């Protein structure tokens, strides 16, 4: 019973964490000195959740994270959610094909997630005519965007993992990996 309660609590705590991240991202990381970083903390959370959550819980969380991002952005409804879900899908495939066991491989996956996110964004934005002239600045800032994802992947993963450990989700996730149970 306690375990289930913790699990539900974890779900809401992840959403609250994402709200805090989005607040941080839209204020502190937009200061003139840091704005070049183009860091997307929510994307890192999405990558982590894709690796450590089951399908249903993961997809639900990512849809909510997408909505959190959209209400803190001028983006049209659905575009950021679709991009995050594309990253989720890509990581599910990657998990099937490669072993993602070390922190380094997780970091590489975060950077790859950044590339998938950008590609998904370009495709959707082009399709719906909202790309306009923004592709140029997007490409200009691509390198700092990917580097910042790589740099911040570990601390963000550790933070979410500590949250998972406190709410017993991480143990379950590890057990699932050890037993080879399907996600």
């Amino acid at each position, binding site marked *: 019973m306690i375990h289930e309660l913790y699990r539900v609590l974890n779900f809401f705590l992840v959403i609250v964490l994402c709200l805090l991240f989005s607040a941080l991202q*839209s204020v502190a990381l937009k200061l003139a000195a840091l704005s070049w970083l183009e860091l997307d903390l929510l994307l890192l959370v999405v990558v982590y959740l894709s690796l450590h959550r089951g399908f249903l819980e993961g997809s639900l969380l990512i849809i909510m994270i997408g909505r959190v991002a959209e209400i803190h952005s001028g983006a049209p409804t659905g575009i950021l959610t679709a991009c995050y879900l594309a990253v989720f899908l890509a990581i*599910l495939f990657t998990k099937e094909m490669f072993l993602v066991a070390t922190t380094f491989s997780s970091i590489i996956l975060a950077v790859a997630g950044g590339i998938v996110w950008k590609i998904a964004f370009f495709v959707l934005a082009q399709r719906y005519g909202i790309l306009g002239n923004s592709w140029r600045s997007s490409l200009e800032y691509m390198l700092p965007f990917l580097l910042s994802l790589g740099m911040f992947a570990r601390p963000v993963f550790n933070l979410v993992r500590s949250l998972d450990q406190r709410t017993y989700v991480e143990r379950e996730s590890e057990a699932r990996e050890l037993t080879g149970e399907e996600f």
Partner: protein
Amino acid sequence: MWNIIKEYRHYLATLVLVIVPVIALNAGGKRPADFHWFDRAAIAVSAPVQTSIRWVIETSWDSLQSYLLLLNTQSNNRGLALENRKLLNEIAAFEEVAKENARLKALVEFNAPLEGKKVVAQVIAQDVSPEFRMIRINKGTRNGVEAGMAVISLEGVVGRVIRAGKEFSDVLSLLDSSSAIDALLQRNRVRGVVEGLGGNSLAMKYLRRTDDVQEGDLIVSSGIGGLFPKGLTIGKVIAVKKKNFGISQSVEVVPAADFNRLEEVTVIDPPKMPLEIATLDDAKEKEAAKQPKQDSRGAKSAPSPKAEPKVKAAPAPAPAAQ
């Protein structure tokens, strides 16, 4: 077949999940959706955090600056330095208040000639996604801010309100790639459209190749569309590129407003220009004059005295901002 579907059911389901927001995007158009209950709840959590983070950063930065000023004094006399630190901290605090007062005073003076509703607001956050250029301000419908209003700063045009919550509103800045504003070159009144590039600069488009555009030319709003009053500064030309072929030229513009250091803005709702009102009145009167002719009885009735065309003097155009 069933086995394949069963094996890949999660991927198929995720694909469906990706398609759902795409359909939402298709149905919702290019505009972000208005706030719903989940959005309002989420903003109720994140907006105070945004305000707090901003306050912490500003206070820390002021304290750090004050501390750095004091490092040399400390080595000379610790006691004196302690007193100095306190005084300098106070001075820094007063200076900050004085600067804010000066900014607000300048903003009030700047706003005075503008007609219509005006709401002064503070910028509390920027867009969470690097691909879009929205800013969030601390005034909403409770303060009279509504979607579609224009937003300006002391330096010039900032953008327009795209959605308004009770306490907060989102402003689509000029820098966003979906932003466009009709503009004039102040020097020779050549018209074009200023569009955002998604980065830190703008582009002025639809200028003919033969139009005289020079680096340093000031660009002001044309007033067409009725959203922004005529003559507000938009930016300055920083580069002009003319190709050997084609009918247009590409002009790069740096915005007058510094979006990285934007603190206070004014939301304005300019009243309809008298000329537009006159035109609307004339149209209504013409419509009213037509009404008796379309009488169900079929008899041609004489136009009422009200239907006589009125000639209203068009007002002189507002002076352009210098």
